[in-house]
């Protein structure tokens, strides 16, 4: 099984949705898309082996993959969608009046990269923009960098982290998305300095969304070795960019990009993942 299937507890949520164990998901025959992106569902350096099923969030990912000759794709929507399905009765999204403040997700780095940007400038922009209490959610790497974390704390923001995504099935916070869900549904707004997965998640639970501020970038993008994608995202999805956004437009795009209209039934997922014993 591809170890990225466990990141953020994706495999766990899908397993629970299929009526199987949350704690010990069975190996998925294939690889799951683990975050929203402007590619074929996987990172620039991630090339799943030939003949290995690929489970992506949206038809846009599928089309991009087909364009470069990749096959064996199934569009199933984001694991987040299935969490929403699981939560709809036990922990429904509260009314808008019961939600307050903004949760802000600064653009984050990853295990093998480094983000370059001006956090102080971003903090100033958040202060100028948001009128309610602000929660800043840092990725675990920045959360464990005191020099970054302290800046946001000193600015008077509540600073949190949803957990670690884990590597090689070690250290994964399997309830990462549960925590993210709990935080997002208590805030009225979800914002970021980049169009990221969290923004789509926010839109899916009825939050106002906004993308503004210093977009920052990966350090290695400065030497043009990695495609940044920020400008492309602005061109493709202008409806998300700005301090105020149109809820209806945002919602329509979110349905497409998260594949909320492309969810599979538990039986289909079991069949796709090889979780069904067939003979």
């Amino acid at each position, binding site marked *: 099984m591809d170890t990225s299937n466990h990141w953020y507890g994706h495999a766990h949520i899908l397993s629970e949705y299929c009526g199987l164990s949350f704690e010990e998901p069975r190996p998925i025959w*294939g690889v799951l898309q683990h975050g929203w992106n402007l590619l074929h569902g996987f990172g620039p350096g991630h090339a799943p082996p030939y*003949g*290995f*099923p*690929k489970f992506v969030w949206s*038809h846009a990912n*599928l*089309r991009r993959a*087909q364009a470069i000759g990749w*096959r*064996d*794709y*199934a*569009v*199933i929507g984001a694991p987040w969608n299935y969490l929403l399905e699981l939560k709809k009765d036990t922990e429904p999204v509260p009314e808008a009046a019961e939600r307050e403040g903004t949760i802000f997700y600064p653009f984050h780095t990853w295990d093998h990269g480094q983000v370059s940007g001006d956090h102080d400038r971003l903090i100033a922009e958040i202060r100028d923009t948001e009128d309610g209490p602000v929660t800043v959610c840092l990725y675990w790497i920045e959360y464990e960098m005191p020099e970054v974390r302290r800046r946001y704390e000193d600015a008077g923001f509540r600073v949190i982290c949803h957990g670690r995504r884990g590597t090689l099935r070690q250290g994964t916070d399997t309830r990462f998305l549960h925590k993210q869900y709990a935080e997002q549904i208590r805030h009225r707004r979800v914002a970021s300095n980049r169009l990221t997965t969290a923004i789509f998640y926010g839109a899916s639970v009825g939050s106002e969304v906004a993308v503004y501020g210093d977009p920052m970038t990966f350090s290695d993008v400065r030497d043009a070795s990695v495609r940044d994608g920020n400008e492309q995202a602005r061109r493709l999805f202008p409806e998300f960019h700005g301090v105020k956004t149109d809820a209806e437009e945002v919602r329509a795009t979110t349905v497409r990009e998260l594949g909320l*209209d*492309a969810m*599979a*039934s*538990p*039986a*289909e997922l*079991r*069949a*796709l993942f090889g979780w*069904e014993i*067939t*003979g």
Partner: protein
Amino acid sequence: MNDIDTVAKSAAYEVVSGDMYDWSDLTDARALPHGPVLTRFAVATASDAAHLLVVGPHHLDLLDAVVGLASRTTLVLRTHTDAQLVSERYADRTVDVVCGDLRSWTPDQPADAVLALDGLGRVTTIDAAPVDWHTISVHLARLTTRDARLSVVVPNPGSPLAQLRAVTPEASNEDADWSFPIHDRAHPRGLADASARFAGRGYTLWPDVDAPTLAATPDACTVALAIAHGRPVDTPTLRELQPVLAQALDTLGTAAAAGGWLVTRTADAIPAVLGVDRSGNETSWTAPDRSWLVEAMRDSARRDAAGLRRHVRRLRDAVDGDPERWRGLQADEIGLDAGQVVPLHDSAVKLGETAEEIFLGLLDELAAYLCVAGWRHPWPAGRGRDELTVLLAATVETVTTPADVRQVRGRREAALSSNGMTPVFARRTSPAEADTSELRKLLDENEALRGQVTWFKQQMRQRQTMTHEVRTAARRDVAALNGRIKDLEEQLSAREATSISRVAQRASTVPGRARARLGRLPGARRAARLLRRALGRLRRAIRR
């Protein structure tokens, strides 16, 4: 040569120039136009005509259906054998039979209805130099009134279907399987060209022009219909080409790939899609919005998983709602109308008992269609027809297994077979039906692979045995060394600490080069390690 210029024969039919002896188009190995689809067009053309002209050979059943519909009927045939046959058959009817080349005949009354359902290939004599299609069509127009009704069939020599069909008979080398290839530069290049020549409405004919099971106007003829009715002879070789055929149909358009075309001008309106169902009965399909479920499924399979799931759900709901309506249908007989699936005709055939079985059978055929049409690959690998059916069923929470699917298919095919029908999408040949030489080759390959697997297993076992032996030996060595250490510890503990210190000091004063040389001796380093460990333990014991 027989002398046919007798009073009796010439009294039975008119003879004009170009009449042929010792020849019969009606009993020729080549098929004659017939069947319910062509008959429907023939009747619509002939009904209430003042003068019906039938040119070229036609199947007697078809002639029976039209003779008597018009006030007067003239049959033009080029051979005496055929002229004799039909003149006797219709001796008591108002039928004039003419024997000879069409170009030699001049009617005393222009025809207001023309049937040429065999095309224009067998209306002129072979005793003269051949004439092209255009010349004959121009002549035919001169024999008719300006606004005459007509039904003219035009074969499509470029049809991939016709060409695929031509592949197999060559191997048999039978006269009956051979036909003279058409190399006529004046032959219409397409349906639009043919329609323009006669100013009529064009239909595509499937799978061939002799006995089409489907006639559809180009805009109503979907790829699904074309595949369902135009699929080539069911042989393993040709079946491999079906995805290519589907692609060609999709790209070229169905009209270019049709087995032939029919140009018509009739008084009665004929539906855009006219065919016979699988039990052989004539049926007119009205495809609402010109949409077929199989095509919608194919379109969705590639890039619209949500749409695919929606179609399956609609089908499931429809079958659950009224299983009787769906019991006798195959997958290509389902239309889509305003988002609802609709059966395109009624069928008395029983292909399933329960709603679940009917639904699964239809899904199985849809899966087969996706595979045939070459759309399996967008799905995760390793999913053939059986597993794709399971997956499609799973989209609506119906849990089944490939074994269940095969069982349902078996029952369905048995029911079809008992009604003289064939499955819409043929399954792959079972080993028993396969070519024996191919089967032999596969068996040999299988045997060779089995041998390789056995060899690998033996290698694995050998390695496991070796590993086990090495591990046992190592365990034995470690045990011996532990015993030795114990002995040394006991010996050393008996001596005084000072002597131990002395030994240690001596050891440390040995020059580096000498120590290095000593270290090269086999087992010296290990002995030194053991010694150091023993000394350490002794020191600790003494300290206590």
